[in-house]
């Protein structure tokens, strides 16, 4: 499914350039992959509330406590996907639910993921089917690097 892969890639690339439409707009960098990163980050980094929340959310959701993937805190770059921050953050925070939805072939997290990738609605059924049947090639082992998950997704959805 080469066309879909091209679509996905092109979409991902364009996401970078339409950075304005995405969180913090810093699509070129991977800074702030931490889960507690917030929208207003740049403005109030030093405020107590943000630090509190970052500590809390990282403590709860951080890959150091649970989560099926690793390599999220330093946010290694996937090779085949041009990464953008919102997608990164979404995947880090929702990886387990995303894996569940991929395996079941449906779900709200999967819908949100497809929307972030700008998969057109009419192509989603096909996309979901490809991800489901490619599950074991996407999540290759416990603790798989998040960047590889992204690469694998692009591979199985070709």
């Amino acid at each position: 499914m080469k066309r879909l892969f091209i679509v996905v890639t092109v979409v991902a690339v364009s996401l970078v350039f339409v950075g304005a439409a995405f969180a913090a707009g810093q699509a070129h960098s991977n800074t702030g992959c931490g889960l507690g990163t917030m929208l207003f980050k740049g403005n109030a980094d030093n405020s107590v509330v943000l630090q509190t929340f970052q500590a809390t959310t990282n403590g709860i959701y951080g890959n150091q406590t649970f989560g099926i993937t690793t390599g999220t805190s330093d946010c290694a770059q996937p090779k085949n996907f041009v990464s953008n921050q919102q997608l990164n953050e979404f995947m880090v925070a929702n990886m387990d639910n995303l894996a569940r939805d991929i395996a079941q072939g449906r779900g709200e997290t999967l819908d949100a993921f497809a929307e972030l990738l700008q998969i057109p609605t009419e192509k989603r059924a096909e996309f979901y089917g490809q991800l489901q049947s490619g599950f074991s090639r996407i999540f290759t082992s416990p603790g798989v690097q998040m960047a590889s998950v992204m690469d694998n997704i692009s591979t199985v959805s070709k």
Partner: protein
Amino acid sequence: MAVILPRLTGACRTFRSACLFVCLAVFSVLVPSTGAASGTASNGYLGELQQLAREKGLAAARTWEVLLHYKPAGSGTMSLVDDPRFFNAPNGSTDREAELSATLASFFRTDEKEDEEHPQCRFIARYTWLNEQLGFDPARLPKAPCAKFDKALSSVNPRSVVLVFPNTLLNLPSSMFGHTLLRINTAYQSDLLSHAVNYAAITGDSLGLFYVFKGIFGFYHGRFSNLPYYEKVQEYSDLEHRDIWEYHLNLTPDEAYRAFLHIWEMKEFYANYYFFDQNCSFNLLFLIEAGRPSLRLTDEFYGKWRFWVIPVDTVRAAQKFGIIERVSYRPSRASKILRIAEEMDSDLKDMTFEVVDGKRTPASVLSEDLRVEEKREVLDLSTELSQYRATTRKLEKAQYQKQFLDILAARSTLGIPAEDPYPIQTPTPPDQGHLSARFRTGGGYRTGSWFTEIEWRAAYHDITDLDEGYVRGAQINFMDLSFRYYFDDDKVRLHRWRVIDIVSLSPWNGIFKPISWKVSAGVEELLLDDGRDHPVARLNVGGGATAGVGSTGRAYLLAETDLQASTRLEKDYALGFGGTAGLMTNVTKDWKVNVWAQGLFYGAGDEHRSLAAALQSNLRFTTNTSLSLDAKRELTFDRYRTDITARMNWYY
């Protein structure tokens, strides 16, 4: 014309109106020294704008009141925001006019530091509104660039607003009354990709009395924060297992934009946080008002002789103003687990537990002689339970990673069901339940005398109240005060004062085995050794288990300890142990009964025993009116007492 100018010296403030024109004249001299502006050309224009604002009476406008959180205080006005940096005028928290003039002056500033946002950006909601009202001339008041704001705006892209209510959860005392937050919908279709705005107290202290004290008396700072909605969904749905109600408001995209401007403006400032009234739910209402200032939501609570704001009541206020368009229900993970398990027979459930206990591989489910739907059920339930165990730390991370992926790998071979295989029926929304305060009156007979009774309860829900909109089996009675007038001795007596009375009956259901518990503290009229009733201070704590009986029934068994204190007791106290067994159930949709028996044996202090059995029933006429019929028979200090009451309940 009594007009007040900002940032003037003490002398000027004393003779406000008299020195007004002098002040105006010397404004350009004074202002640089207060750091408000520079350059005489702009000051001329500033004077014009301030004059125009006065002529238009903008300081008295509703929008200005909302944006500054002004509320009447005595004969004047006072802002509920406590952070001094929120105001441009030194007396801005009490003087609308001064604050408006100083805000206009701040827009002319050119001396902000490099990493600092220009006041035009920091106070973007005020700037936007004043610009609309006064029509700033860009040549004379240049628009400062607001890069950070522009970036945030484009990423949030506000379209509509949702009032989100994570429900109470049994067994989570901190969730007692629920919570509210605001969701700003973006251009995305997926709700998960919208933005959550939360208001919370910043508490460094651990829990405890000190925490409660500081919380009640406003020692903590409350602040707004902004998070991706999926993080809040995970927090409530996946970790705390609380169902979420989403009330979609009919704010237009423009109104959502205005709410967002105010959120931006509030992001750096705090207000003292009061757990009871100026709390999360109350402060969110300002954001909605900023979207549409004609809504007077906060006035529903402020200065109304109502000293607390219960989250669900803010939803009702929104309902009252007709801004709720529709409501949607987001079941928690626990609700999903129970829903999946509901249709499975015990063999399938056993198989599921074998998988999550690690006694069989997920792949082995595939080779079982089962229908594909059944295999999916086993693996889907295993998936949820595995995640549940990981989040509750019953499963180590490494074990979880492997188990979870194995389950999903097996599940991924079973195809995609055409529609949601486990649709969950939407229960009654919380705002449709009875109101949270209760008044009741009636009369009855207590061995020896007839009486009449009045009772008032501040909040919230009793296990004998009908459950629609509430969590079944969760009781929170807060400040429940009743007096009785006894005919035989012609006296009014305090019958009962329950300061707090919490019962949490969370049923075992084959998946979860939660603890049931109760705690109550207060003063109660009790039968003592002299054969008469006396007020006794009482603390009662218990724990046990509950089983579901039918669809509405809860059978419960609690071991408890009871501490009584009164000068009428020998040694002034009695400490006892015992237990309660009971069954609460709906007989019909509108008729609920609770029957229980209790035995308490006091071995310390005033040694005695107390046995009691009771039947309580509540018959509903409308959502907010019902009739209670209660009968109780007890044997205490070897004397019998019968207590029968009939009371009408009004919830308001």
